């Protein structure tokens, strides 16, 4: 007469109770941050089905409508409309999708390049190491915004270009971390054993090195999400990022800048969206970094 639920726990309920335990172990700021982050991802993924209006076309009769809680505002446009009568809420939702796409793509590209360079440098050592690390030092010592601005101006504003530009700026951090971690384990017994048993270098890196250095790289990736969001927004603000009329949060702030005295919400709403998202990402990222690898605490400068 063993209790059925403990004897054969239903998988879903186990996951749910696991999530419940995790939730209870978080303090309040972290709970709010996680909730915001989940909201961000949901909004970004399901954006096209959630937007109340078309984010790209507005009605000129409804130009510069203030937010609902302001005088003259209405719940038809909770966050008001911009100078072309486009619904700001819809644009924020569409902007979340842009932000998340850029984040995922950049982290995939920069992570792949950086990891490849870093593990190669750490694993092979010698001249490979020296040449590759010189390259990394060079990339690290170039002012980020300036490099992105130069590359952005060269390639012209386009969605693909901004992803490439930000990846080119950020890959070096993965390379440095991957090299350091690879150096730590490349002379471990199991790596030597794999080598003497005739496994090729590529296979050793893939099967034995990568799985062991992955946690450190995941930490870098989480700490970088906020950087990517701010960088994308900054470049779009400066006019070399996501080209209009796509509603990047950064270009929305740029659009609203000259209306700051008469229609503050054009600037404040998208800016708040950036601030809240990045704050949530940073809080969760720090907590995750602490759990995975406490030694990395304080690296997020």
């Amino acid at each position: 007469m063993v209790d059925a639920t403990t004897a054969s726990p239903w998988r879903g309920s186990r996951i749910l109770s696991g999530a419940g335990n995790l939730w209870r172990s978080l303090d309040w700021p972290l709970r709010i941050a996680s909730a915001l982050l989940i909201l961000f991802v949901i909004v970004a993924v399901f954006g096209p089905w959630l937007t109340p209006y078309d984010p790209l076309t507005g009605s000129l009769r409804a130009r510069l409508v203030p937010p609902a809680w302001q005088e003259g505002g209405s719940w038809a446009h909770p966050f008001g409309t911009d100078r072309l009568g486009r619904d700001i809420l819809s644009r924020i939702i569409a902007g979340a999708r842009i932000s998340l796409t850029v984040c995922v793509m950049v982290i995939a590209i920069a992570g792949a390049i950086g990891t490849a360079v870093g593990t190669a440098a750490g694993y092979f050592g010698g001249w490979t190491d020296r040449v590759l690390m010189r390259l990394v030092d060079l990339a690290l010592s170039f002012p980020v915004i300036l490099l992105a601005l130069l590359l952005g101006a060269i390639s012209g504003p386009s969605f693909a270009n901004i992803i490439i530009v930000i990846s080119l700026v950020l890959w070096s951090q993965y390379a440095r971390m991957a090299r350091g971690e690879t150096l730590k384990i490349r002379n471990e017994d199991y790596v030597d054993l794999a080598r003497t048993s005739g496994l090729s270098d590529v296979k050793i890196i893939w099967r034995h090195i990568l799985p062991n250095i992955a946690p450190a790289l995941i930490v870098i990736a989480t700490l970088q999400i906020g950087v990517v969001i701010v960088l994308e927004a900054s470049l779009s603000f400066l006019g070399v990022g996501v080209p209009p009329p796509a509603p990047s949060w950064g270009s929305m702030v740029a659009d609203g800048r000259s209306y700051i005295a008469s229609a503050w919400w054009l600037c404040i709403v998208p800016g708040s969206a950036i601030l809240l998202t990045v704050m949530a990402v940073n809080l969760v990222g720090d907590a995750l970094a602490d759990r995975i690898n406490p030694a990395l605490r304080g690296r997020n400068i």
Partner: protein
Amino acid sequence: MLKIIVTRVGEALVALLLMSLVIFLLSRLTGDPVALLLGDGATEADKAKLTQDLGLDQPLPIQYLTFLGDALTGDFGTSVTAGSQPALQLVLARLPASLSLAAVALVFTVTIGILFGVLAAIRRNSAVDIAARLIALVGQSVPSFWLGIVLMYIFAVQLGWLPTSGYGQWQHYVLPAATLGLFTLAAITRLVRSSMLEALGSEYIKLARIKGLSEAVVIWKHALANSLIPVITFMGTFFAVMITGAVIVETVFSWPGIGRLAYESILSRDFPVVQTVVLVITSLFILANLAVDLLYVLVDPRMRSRG
């Protein structure tokens, strides 16, 4: 010790040389300045002549060597857009505005950041600590272009306490310096807080207390001295953040510095100015890192024996 200094200076010079090559190549990729300068109505002969005048008909390695040789003698060419002024002169004229802004921001953020970090560490979980942690979180998350606009809106447009933009009097420095400094302030507060907490739990602080030193001396002298080392380590990064941030902050506040010059010249594809301004900024960057490295050797005796 001398060996370390020579090595570091040598490395900095190599970095500078590599950087000049990268900048040269990048600025050659930004597009054709000839077409941009002459507009649509230009004849082929005009284009050919200007190409020749600018030296753009030479092979790239020759162009680079010419660029390098000229640069070493202080000749960075003349601006293509700003009435053929010498590029270097244009950049140097803008340098004081940027450096003074960065200096003001850095002095304030270091002072306030250390104060905040120490107070937060000795009164853990108090109101000061929570405020410090909040500043650290917001400061590292807020995009500076937006912060600048918000501060401008509150203090210049709504309250009318400070000018929206301009340059010359001390009032003009407040908002740009605050915008530029918040990220660094957040970072320093965070660093000092965590290293102070570590220091306060250490053996030598226990010893200092057992010796009967006053609490003020223990905290502000013994614990703080060791907590400042990570701040010095990141000083180069902070300076870099300030220079990089200058591009955005100067653009928002119409500050007449090299950051805005960089932005404007990149957008107008003014090759000679782009090269010069980016080279000047990266040189500052490399020099700052070199200075930090050397300072580190001076401050931390443990570093002297290392290569």
